[in-house]
């Protein structure tokens, strides 16, 4: 009985090609060969692990074998020279890596640096350095200006220590100008020149506009409020010593505030952290009272020293706030962790608070807890705003132009970066519509 046509078609379509049948017949042999190769690979790998990790003797032998393949030699090209831009107490020694010094399987275990004041004299060990090092700076008071020094470098191999030849003479010489600081020096001259030019212009009567700062405008109102309430004013000059510019800026603000206080016949309390600052504050307040025509109203006991410990000082000032209940608190100068403790206590005691600091981390605390905050440069600008002297206002203009220069430099830096790197190429491609 003939099969139906569809069955024949199915049989034909399912027929395995002849070449596949041949491959299937040879499959056991192929699998055997693959297993053999795999076994060989595993064996070799295991033997390698054994050599590397199991036996230190084998490891040393391998190092020796490898060492024989390298040519052991001392570091070459020893160069000793005076370190530039220093007071003449340092010499830089350079050399090339010894053969076999590399990151992987290094045969060199380190370098020894020797120094002598004579090429034929006794060399003393100066330093021991790790592999990969090609430079050493010999510095300190033991080096004498104008004296000649010689150096040798030794490479330490597992078996031998090989010494280089003696370097040329190096003489430490002091320099009179640090050439690496030339850009800063030029910027200093430019900025100082601009400031002086603005001061001269302002002195000639040129009117200069300066934007109002709310914190400074509020000073008079705050003093007036204290007068109306019959309460004192508390001025905290911060924790900086007298050499800090922020503290000096605080003196200038204190002088203006104390003069107003004297005119309004109010009391000012100045607790101090630093005795030098206290002495200056006493003089500043005393002079302010004198210039206001009320020298007899000045009480030296209102400008007093507390302590030079941070938190005891904070506790004392907090105590003053809660006892005296000042109408206005000024925080001007340098502040650290105590800023928020002071400002929050002042807030609780119901005082108007004006703060000013250049301490970046403390600015947010003052912003939150005080009514007005002079941020960063505003602290330095405050004395000019308060005095309204033309020369002082001229310096503010110099500051503004300094900021313009800084922004211009930043833009120039971005442009240079864009034109000199891969990012610049991508940017230009994008600009050109690529």
């Amino acid at each position, binding site marked *: 009985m003939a099969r139906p046509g569809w069955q024949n078609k199915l049989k034909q379509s399912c027929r395995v090609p002849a070449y596949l049948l041949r491959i299937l017949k040879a499959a056991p042999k192929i699998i055997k060969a693959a297993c053999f190769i795999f076994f060989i690979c595993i064996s070799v790998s295991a033997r390698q692990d054994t050599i590397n990790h199991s036996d230190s003797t084998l490891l040393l032998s391998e190092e020796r074998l490898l060492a024989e393949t390298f040519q052991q030699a001392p570091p070459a090209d020893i160069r000793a020279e005076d370190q530039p831009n220093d007071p003449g107490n340092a010499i830089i020694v350079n050399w090339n890596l010894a053969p076999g010094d590399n990151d992987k399987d290094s045969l060199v275990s380190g370098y020894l640096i020797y120094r002598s004041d004579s090429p034929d004299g006794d060399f003393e060990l100066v330093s021991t350095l790790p592999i990969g090092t090609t430079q050493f700076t010999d510095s300190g008071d033991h080096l004498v200006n104008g004296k000649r020094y010689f150096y040798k470098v030794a490479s330490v191999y597992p078996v031998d220590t090989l010494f280089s030849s003696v370097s040329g003479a190096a003489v430490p010489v002091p320099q009179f100008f640090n050439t690496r600081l030339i850009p800063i020096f030029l910027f*200093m001259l430019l900025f100082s020149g601009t400031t002086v030019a603005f001061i001269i212009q302002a002195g000639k009567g040129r009117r200069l506009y300066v934007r109002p700062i709310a914190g400074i405008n509020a000073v008079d109102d705050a003093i007036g409020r204290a007068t109306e309430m019959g309460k004192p004013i508390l001025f905290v000059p911060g924790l900086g010593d007298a050499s800090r510019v922020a503290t*000096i800026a605080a003196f200038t603000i204190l002088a203006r505030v104390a003069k107003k206080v004297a005119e309004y016949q109010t009391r000012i309390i100045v607790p101090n952290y630093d005795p030098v600052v206290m*002495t200056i504050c006493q003089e500043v307040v005393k002079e302010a009272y004198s210039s206001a025509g009320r020298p007899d109203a000045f009480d030296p006991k209102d400008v*007093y020293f507390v302590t030079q410990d941070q938190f005891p000082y904070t506790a004392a000032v907090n105590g003053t706030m809660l006892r005296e209940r000042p109408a206005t608190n000024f925080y001007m100068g340098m502040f650290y962790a105590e800023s928020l403790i002071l400002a929050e206590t002042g807030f609780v005691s119901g005082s108007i608070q004006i703060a000013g600091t250049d301490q970046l981390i403390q600015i947010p605390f003052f912003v939150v807890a005080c009514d007005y905050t002079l941020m960063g440069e505003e602290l330095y600008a405050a004395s000019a705003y308060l005095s309204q002297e033309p020369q002082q206002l001229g310096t503010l203009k110099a500051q503004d132009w300094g900021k313009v220069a800084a922004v211009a430099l930043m833009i120039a830096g971005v442009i240079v970066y864009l034109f000199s790197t891969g990012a610049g190429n991508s940017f230009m491609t994008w600009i050109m519509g690529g």
Partner: protein
Amino acid sequence: MRREVPLTIVFVCGAFMAFQYFVPHHVSATIYQYALNWTIIIGIFTLTVGIGSLINLHYDRISKRKERWQYSIVTLVALAYMTILGLLSPNALQDPKSLLMTMYFYVLSPVQATMFALLAFFIASAAYRAFRAKTLLATLLMLSAVIVMLGRVFIGDFLTGWLPEGMRFSDVARYILDYPNTAAKRAIYIGVGLGVGVTTLKIILGIERTWLGGGK
């Protein structure tokens, strides 16, 4: 002369210090070191002025029976006690078991730590006021703060782990800190640097002289 002499000294010393920064020569460095030593010595001497002021203030409070004058007695007794302890045992600072150091470690240090610990509570109360969304800027501040706070702890990524990388709280917090925050900080730093430069110049040139004790 009362003004000219100090102003001249300030000008000479200020100009020298400004240029000394650029001169690495050991003579320059030695003079600079001498100046620093003078500052330290003067500072030590002025400490006696400070202690004098402290004693004077508290003696005045006690003698006039001002408000809470009893605390002034405690202050003066503590000052005298620690001074005497220090004078009687000059090597006490090197001995942690000495009475002076015992007082320092077990009385002063805990008191200082207590004051410092108050900061945590003050931060909480200050943050509460700062994050009240009364204006658009205050709202932005609050949102930024919430994202940064959540992004710095595990719960931030726990809540936003389903979002694609770069949009989770930790990623956004890092972006806020690395870019807007850093840019603002650098702007303030540049302003502070210029302000310091100008103020220094004003002092060296004698334009700013309130540190002398008053106006012109």
